[in-house]
């Protein structure tokens, strides 16, 4: 018994000593800083699903970490400070996210929350980050909320091409090239679906009511068979099919539209445009797969797999070199130097913008200053992995960093970008 008591006392004393050490950390650095910044380090945090059904997204922080390692080792960090990136797992469940956010803020004491993944998970801690005035910066989700709600949540900002802007790109193309289209819309009955539908309507403007002839919906989690929705839209006389669904539903919608003899022109939301999905659908359709050719979608990042187009591109070369050198133990297929994993490419592209912003902040490394630069003064034209011609930009009134992209057409077994960069920025 005495032995046990002594051990307990020692443990207690030890933990008290540790606590004391933690609170005595002094910051002697001459620059203006906030927690998470020391004279030789910038500590960023992130929350991504390392486990669970959405763990494919974990390639994103792998791409980010590889880029930070490259900047640390080959560029001497950012103004002499090494970037450290703490990544926590919330398994894509909003029930886990609040504790993870507090762990980053209060225990790890990160400078900011970088690239956090998922719409429901980000929404779960948006109030928290904003109440703490810690940036929830460049979140990895395409929801319109981050830009739209900026005045209410000035510490939250997105990065990627948002749903509404993408939809406005399609609208711009349709108005210019197919002004007499009769559009049928299939969308997921939630916030994600309505972002795309509202974006299209806003883009079509006064012609929206006459051009959109029918809509059909489904709920996330429904059986993936879209035959009844497709039959409903076909019956409206639509000749254009705007598909706002996740991949499994999109595949069913396209297959049904073709096999039922409708064969409309397809517009496919980027959420469901991975090449692997459509290669599979094409195999499934066999002889009638040619009806899929010409399906339109949108893209804003380079595809390293497309070697004819990007084989000698400096940005893609940089991606490959970095993944080879620093991907090392982080990268497991498919997140490797080939670029087969788009999430990996995406991660490195966002990390580039993050480093860009930190550089601009210079010696004024406060959360407020970094957030101001990111949300109001961003103008990046040299991101190595976004399509040439895209400007990652925010202003005092526009908080959607990427609102541009290029359209692409499906051709037998791959997507072919065409035309120039189109802007989908809201009015």
């Amino acid at each position, binding site marked *: *018994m005495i032995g046990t008591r002594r051990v307990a006392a020692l443990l207690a004393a030890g*933990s*008290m000593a540790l*606590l004391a050490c933690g609170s005595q950390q002094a910051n002697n650095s001459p620059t203006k800083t906030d927690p998470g910044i020391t004279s030789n380090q910038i500590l960023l945090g992130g929350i991504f699903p*390392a*486990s*669970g059904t959405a763990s494919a997204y*974990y390639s994103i922080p792998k791409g980010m970490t590889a880029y930070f390692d490259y900047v640390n080792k080959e560029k001497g960090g950012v103004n002499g400070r090494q970037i450290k990136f703490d*990544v*926590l*797992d919330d*398994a*894509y*469940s*909003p*029930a*886990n996210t*609040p*504790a993870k956010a*507090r*762990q980053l*803020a*209060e*225990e790890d004491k990160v400078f900011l929350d970088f690239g956090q993944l998922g*719409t*429901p*998970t980000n*929404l*779960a*801690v*948006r*109030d*928290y980050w904003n*109440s703490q005035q810690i940036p929830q910066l460049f979140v990895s989700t395409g929801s319109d909320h981050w830009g739209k709600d900026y005045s209410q949540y000035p510490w939250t900002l997105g990065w990627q091409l948002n749903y509404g802007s993408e939809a406005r790109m399609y609208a711009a193309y349709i108005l210019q090239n197919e002004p007499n289209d009769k559009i049928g819309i299939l969308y997921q*009955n*939630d*916030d*994600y679906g309505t972002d795309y539908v509202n974006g299209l309507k806003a883009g079509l403007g006064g012609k929206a009511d006459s051009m959109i002839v029918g809509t059909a919906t489904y*709920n*996330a*989690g*429904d059986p993936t068979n879209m035959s009844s929705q497709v039959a409903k839209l076909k019956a409206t006389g639509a000749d254009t099919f705007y598909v706002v669904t996740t991949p499994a539903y999109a595949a069913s919608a396209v297959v049904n539209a073709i096999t039922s003899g409708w064969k409309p022109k397809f517009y496919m939301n980027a959420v469901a445009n991975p090449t692997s999905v459509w290669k599979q659908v094409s195999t499934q359709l066999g002889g009638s797969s040619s009806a899929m050719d010409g399906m339109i979608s949108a893209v804003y990042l380079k595809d390293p797999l497309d070697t004819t187009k990007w084989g000698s591109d400096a940005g893609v070369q940089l991606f490959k070199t970095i993944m080879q050198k620093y991907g090392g133990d*982080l990268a497991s297929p498919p997140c490797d130097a080939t670029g087969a994993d788009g999430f990996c490419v995406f991660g490195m592209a966002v990390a580039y913008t993050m480093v860009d912003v930190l550089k601009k902040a210079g010696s004024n490394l406060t959360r407020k200053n970094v957030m101001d630069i990111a949300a109001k003064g961003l103008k990046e034209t040299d991101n190595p992995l976004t399509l040439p011609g895209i400007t990652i930009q925010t202003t005092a009134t526009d908080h959607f960093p990427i609102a541009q992209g290029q359209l692409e057409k499906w051709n037998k077994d791959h997507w072919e970008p065409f035309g120039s960069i189109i802007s989908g920025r809201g009015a």
Partner: protein
Amino acid sequence: MRRDYLNWAIGVVGVALLLVVPNVTDQFQTFMFAQVAAYAVAVVGLNILTGYSGQISLGNGAFMAIGSYTTALLTARAGWPVYLTIPVGGLLAGLVGLLVGIPALRLRGIYLALATFALALSVTPVLNNYDKFTGGHLGVGFKAVTPPFDIPLSNEQWLYFLGWIVFFLLFVPAWLLLRGRTGRAWMAVRDSETAAAANGIGLAYYKTLAFGISALYAGVAGSLLVIDFAYVNPDSYNLNLSLQLLVAMVIGGLANIWGPLFGALLVVWLPYVAEKAVNSKPDLAFGALLIVVVFLAPNGIAGLLRRGLLTLRGRRQEASQTTGALEATPAEADQIAT
């Protein structure tokens, strides 16, 4: 009688510990312990249903969702004081639990598990479907609670005390119920329905009652959790939550009054430890640790601790006698774990 002394001793030490914890932890850790309180309430409820009355439920996450949404909607939309919504959430969930308990009377063992499994699976789609009412995918947020009457506590400390006060308000009646007539009836039903019925125990009454009480506890737990987060979303109530409750109950100690505390501690803190151990594959470490615990403590942590305590006092014989009567047999534990 001696068991009572032991329980009282554990209780006193427990309360002392609970008072110390928020003073020596940082905000994040305090917040984690506040969540432990909420999960502990839910696991006490599940333990009544599964551990004591022998009805396996994979669906208690659904009852938690009812509590959570009651609190969130009443607070955000109707402007109710958040504390008032806790009993309402509990009672609503309890009512639904009673209703679920009626058809459940016809199901046993693995079939009941499957039926409640369906309940757990349906939560997210149902909440998303009635999005006009529930806020759908976007969820419902409200203003985070702060300590009332200018009590000099941080927000996290207040959440902590709120959680543990509610825990005690629910733990004491559960304890009284379980050590009295009702508890004995539940255990009799669990051990043999035929024998219980032959002794004049109303099967339908006691089994439905267990469902209702269990759901009430789950509802209160859901309210507490949503107060901690100040936000609720359909995706929070995935199957994983219900499974976590089951894991917590089994690991803590099936049909052991203290089990839920250990189980809740584990469910909240083990993922954290696992993540520190193996950063990129926390689920792997979580699984490994789980297996270790199950192997080392087949009667759960509470069972292990009690056996340890009794062994220390040199009363091995008593240990073997009491564990047989008041804990689930290993065979029963197996049945639930598989």
